């Protein structure tokens, strides 16, 4: 089984993803493993989508999405959807948006 997702990087995060905001991602389940979770997507992004290794801390800190980045599942704060435990479904749009500070 696999899930096909749209993954977005907003708030300037696209800078570490080839300046592209929207990406199509298909995650494959390891055989025998349980359902794919948002945690698995975060691992996949860290290992496969960040071009320059030095940029990994821009996205990840202490094993999860770094403070100052909001994570959204179909336009809803992941805090309302089990955070890393959210079970991914085909067609989900997962957005990561860095908090802006300019004024």
């Amino acid at each position, binding site marked *: 089984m696999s899930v096909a997702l749209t993954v977005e990087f907003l708030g300037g995060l696209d800078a570490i993803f080839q300046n592209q905001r929207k990406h199509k991602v298909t995650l494959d389940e390891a055989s025998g493993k349980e359902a794919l979770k948002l945690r698995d997507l975060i691992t996949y992004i860290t290992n496969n989508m960040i071009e320059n290794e030095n940029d990994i801390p821009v996205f990840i800190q202490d094993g999860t999405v770094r403070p100052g980045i909001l994570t959204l599942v179909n336009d809803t704060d992941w805090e309302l959807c089990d955070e890393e435990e959210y079970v991914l479904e085909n067609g989900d749009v997962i957005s990561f948006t860095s908090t*802006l500070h300019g*004024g």
Partner: protein
Amino acid sequence: QNEKALPLSISEYSRYGRQMICDVTNGVKGQLKLKNSKVLFIGAGGLACPALAYLAGAGVGTIGIVDDDVVENSNLHRQILHSSAKVGMLKCESAREFLTSLNPHIKIVTHPVRLSNDNAFEIFAKYDIILDCTDTPITRYLVSDVAVNLGKMVVSASGVQTEGQLCILNFKNIGPCYRCFYPTPPPPHAVSSCSAGGVIGPCIGLVGVMMAIETMKIILDVYTIENFKPFLLQYNGFPEQSLRNFKMRGRQAKCQSCGDTKTIDRTAIESGKINYFAFCGSKNYNVV
């Protein structure tokens, strides 16, 4: 009929007429809500300029401005209330001149100071709604913490390059605060401001205009305790203009500022026990 007996002067009726005939203002009733409201701007830069102009235009009765910066040439592409002749002048005074000339029926109060743990409570106390138009997480946490402690609502926005974000904090003391969204500050290296990161004038301007609209909704009671749902608006100007409305978490029980066992009270802030510079890290921020 004696003009004194009317809730608004003849001149105010003619000035606000086009707005008072809109359903959302509900005529004189809404106009008086605007007139009686007191709105405080933290910052008089790219976000604040259009928000100041439209809220002054709409007839918000008292507008305060906290800013100790002076107008610079490099501000003028986006900070459209100021002008070349005002380079070197305090931004809050430059804004006051503009706004008084746009609408003489309202009161503009300037606070030419840097917002700090020491002065924030005294300044905020005189206002109903705080508009956070600042540049750094340090000030954003301070604004939110003080507003929560005084029971004030915050319209908070920000922008860099072609993007912007907006949310309403501490809505009627039931909505989430800045710390509910961001319990841990971002590492200092991950923060970019308008002066470092670049900004397209009308993109930050559009977010400022959105702030004015959200503030009007709060004043006009479009949002109520019953219908308010926490949200975050995410705008982007290029290559297509888009506006996303994200559904956000509510108030967090574990929040240090507004939660059940909150620790960030007035004493902790004013004594300096809450040190925002230490909390947010050591990058050399240019506050406000």
